[in-house]
């Protein structure tokens, strides 16, 4: 062959390169390439997760801030409601106290009235008993003639006096 071209040697070179290519691919290229790919994928995944986490954090933060703002509002509302309630309760209490007081006063008045009438009645009875006993005494006393006359005279005098006063008037 011209130029010393030799097919056996060409095939030997081909065989050599096939062995080399297979070995290098298996031993060096694939492991390194795989390592790099996995690292890149892991980093990309981490970056993605970080971005997601950041967004989530941002969202939570906004949510909390909103909640905090709402909490102020809520506290104010609750406070107002509590104040109103307290005022209401105080008012109710006062009213009920007043009502009870009125009732008590009323009851006391009634009781006093009852007592008064009772006392009057008892006084009445006593007076009549007194009058009765006095009358009885008087009747017992009239057994003396002289004294009866004197009593009549005195009575008549008294009546006359009273009559005169009435006329004058």
């Amino acid at each position: 062959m011209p130029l010393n071209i030799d097919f056996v040697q060409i095939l030997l070179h081909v065989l050599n390169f096939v062995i080399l290519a297979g070995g290098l691919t298996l031993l060096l290229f694939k492991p390194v390439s795989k390592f790099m790919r996995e690292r890149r994928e892991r980093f990309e995944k981490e970056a993605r997760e970080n971005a997601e986490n950041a967004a989530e954090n941002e969202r939570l933060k906004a949510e909390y801030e909103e909640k905090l703002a709402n909490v102020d509002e809520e506290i104010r509302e609750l406070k107002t409601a509590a104040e109103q309630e307290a005022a209401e309760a105080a008012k109710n209490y006062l009213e009920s106290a007043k009502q009870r007081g009125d009732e008590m006063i009323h009851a006391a008045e009634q009781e006093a009235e009852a007592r008064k009438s009772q006392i009057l009645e008892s006084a009445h009875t006593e007076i009549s008993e007194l009058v009765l006993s006095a009358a009885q005494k008087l009747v017992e006393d009239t057994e003396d003639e002289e004294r009866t006359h004197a009593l009549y005279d005195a009575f008549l005098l008294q009546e006359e006096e009273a009559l005169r006063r009435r006329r004058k008037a």
Partner: protein
Amino acid sequence: MDLSQKKGRTVFMIVWGALIVLIIAAIIAIGLPSGKSETIKEAMKDGVLHEENKVSFFGLLVNPAVVSAYVITGVLLLCAALIRIFAVPRFKDVPGKFQSVLEKLVEFFEDMARGNSPHKTPVVAAYIFSAGVYIFFSTLFELFGIQVIAENGHSIALPAPLSDINAAIAMGFLSYLFILLAGIIVNGVKGGLRVLKDFSLPISMSFRIFGALLSGLLVTELVYYYTALSFVVPVIVGVLFTILHAVIQTYVLATLVSVFYGEAVEPVQSKKDKKQRKE
């Protein structure tokens, strides 16, 4: 203090100068080295054709490039295995220096594959990674200048495998077959035809890499042939024709393979779209 410093420098200068003179004298005394057993014409011709200095490879008489190729494969696979066993399990999220280099290497080929061939990227990425590593290290391999004894008794330095036309043809045709196969698997007959219309690709790929590396080999051979050129010049030549070639050829082949692969596995479009794309 000042005096002793001055003295030390003087001693150094004298020793250095004496050493240089001694070496030059030795070279002149010995005359041209034993490499002269073959003339420069023979050496250059053998550099291109490898007709003379055959090496035994498991009983088969082959060009030294075959031995180079297998040595490189062995060393690279060993290194890869060691890296796989000891380095890869200890990879960290924040890479160290060594891990950074490995990652950068893989990333470079992956990015190139992705850029040139957005469809079915992983396969071509692995292929151009392997091809790139092979071309780069096999070209640098020349720098080590490992000596072997040829069948005819000459001592020769193992060349870069791809400076042998057989290795270059193997590389070019294998890459073409890889692209063709990918085209057929992904797009059926249409994909295969698409690749076949670039029938000149394997030849151009083969001879590009062969020519590039051979030029380096010839210049290096020329430089080393003359002892007088063995000072300083090999450093420049070595850098120019070895390291730069290693990088450039790796880049070129990886780009070409990924571009043509990308075209082969691209989803089949209508004729109008195709025309527009070509323009």
